[in-house]
């Protein structure tokens, strides 16, 4: 199986985010990490390769810093990487990101393409499905399990409220992967060493520019959410806070 995994670098979960001066994006002087569902997409791809042999290729679109998520993936066992490298990729909407990825892999053939089910920054939950449509491939979303069979694959989709569904589909296909599908591995020391010699292909914006159009949706303004509730903050040493809180639970919220 030849599997492409789309990875995205996003702000680290507890990184303190601040608005830029223009109020259109965050200040970028923070730490980043791989988008969580994408890490599970990679893990699943590596397990499929271990089972069926083949190749795992990782791809990302982002500035120079984003190569970190590719290096980590190579250290965990991916075979090669593709980096669409330009600051401008950060600002693309899901449609254009998918078009750029499709252009970058136009000479490749994959049996499966994985993305995480959504990103922690924009949260569109769209890039994988759009990529499938551009490439003319079938897709399934929010996948919890993948079994290869003679005709293709059987995947387990997560539905809402605790429901699931198996779907049989042909290959090649695009799947968006849910967090928690498998236990994540760590990179080994040997893996980290080997990663240095694995190929990383750089793709410039100029190379895919003709595939990319103007964004069809535009962020006019980014701002802090307006509070809909009057939140009361309890302060003081823990024992005192505990006391105040219980008083509230008893006298105001009346749950004790």
């Amino acid at each position, binding site marked *: 199986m030849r599997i492409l995994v789309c990875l995205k670098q996003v*702000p680290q*979960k507890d990184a303190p*985010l601040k*608005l830029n001066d223009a109020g259109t994006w*965050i200040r970028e002087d923070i730490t980043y990490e791989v988008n969580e569902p994408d890490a599970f997409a990679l893990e699943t791809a590596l397990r499929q390769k271990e089972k069926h042999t083949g190749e795992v290729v990782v791809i990302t679109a982002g500035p120079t810093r984003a190569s970190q998520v590719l290096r980590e993936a190579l250290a965990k066992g991916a075979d090669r990487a593709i980096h669409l490298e330009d600051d401008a990729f950060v600002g693309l909407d899901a*449609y254009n990101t*998918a078009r750029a990825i499709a252009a970058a892999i136009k000479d490749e053939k994959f049996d499966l393409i994985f993305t995480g089910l959504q990103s922690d920054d*924009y*949260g*569109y*939950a*769209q*890039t994988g*499905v*759009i990529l*499938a*449509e551009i490439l003319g491939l*079938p897709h399934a*979303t*929010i996948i919890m399990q993948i079994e290869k069979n003679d005709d293709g694959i059987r995947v387990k989709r*997560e539905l*809402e*409220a*605790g*429901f699931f*569904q198996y*779907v*049989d*589909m042909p290959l090649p296909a695009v799947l968006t992967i*849910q*967090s*928690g599908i498998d236990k994540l591995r760590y990179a080994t020391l040997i893996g980290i060493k080997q990663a240095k010699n694995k190929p990383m292909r750089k793709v410039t914006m100029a190379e895919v520019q003709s595939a990319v159009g103007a964004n*069809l*949706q*535009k*962020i*006019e*303004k*980014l*701002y*802090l*959410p307006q509070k*809909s*509730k009057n*939140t*009361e*903050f*309890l*302060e003081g040493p*823990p*024992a005192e*806070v*505990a*006391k105040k*809180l*219980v008083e509230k*639970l008893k006298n105001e*919220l009346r*749950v*004790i």
Partner: protein
Amino acid sequence: MAETILVIVEQREGKLNRVSWETITAGQAIAAQTGWTLDAAVVGSGVASVASEVAAKKVAKVYAVESARLEPYTPDAFAHGLQEFLGKHPAKLVLMPHTYQVRDFVPKLATALQTTAISDVIGYKYEGGNLLFTRQMFQGKFVADVSFAGSGPCFVTFQNGSFRADKVEAGAAAAPVETVNVDIPDGVVRNHPQEVFKEAKQAVDLTQAEIIVSVGRGIKEEKNIVLAKQLADALGGELAASRPICDNGWLPMDRQVGSSGQTVAPKLYLALGISGAIQHLVGMKGSRSIVAINKDSEAPIFEIADVAVVGNLFDIVPPLIEEVKKAKG
């Protein structure tokens, strides 16, 4: 010419998904402000009764978009059928609830029409003749006003709970229902979905709990779960968790609150070390009172909390258990 707003309601096995009323409420509000026409559509096979249910609301017209190939649901059939429908009945704005099903086909449909979907929207603004849609970013830490730049249609999906289902306006008379048969040829549908099922019988019905103590990543290790359990026991409540805790196997899946777990609205929801990702908030924001304890003062959970404690839960929960026990005598 007045533009058209189309709400595509969601049905499963001939039953309307109630979240669709929220989308119709949103459509009615936008229609009232813009003066545009509001239509609705139901997609499936044998959906006439759902269509007439929707026709009782204040909408100009309801379309029953029909094909035997639309049942069971597949993204291929839905995208194909709706592309054909929208070709015959163009709309400027197409509104849907942000359900797992909609997420599965809308990006495909929008791409096939060379347009875009503004997803997981929580509100809108109509300023100087322009519509802006508000959506959360960075897991709810920020919100963005987003404009649409294409030539249409613009797809918008609304997050659960963003509009009130009980505010949907009834019509003066039933709206006309028109059946539109769409042609989905052989070979369009590539996926073969099997029956929908539940993993195991749910042992815990969190929806009935009056008090819920819920844990998130802030609990750090499996062995610390017992601390939350002690607090839940002292309060006489149920123990619940956000997704990562259940993914780790620290608590069973049937204790998960959020879009992929249970939706709860207890009298008290006490969130321990839960940052408040959107997927979690949609499952509990209807709680009567929300108390949050988290070390990160900027955690989105505090946006919806009634009572907030910024601090280390391991410092606060032990004395809290003691105080609860004292208060209960």
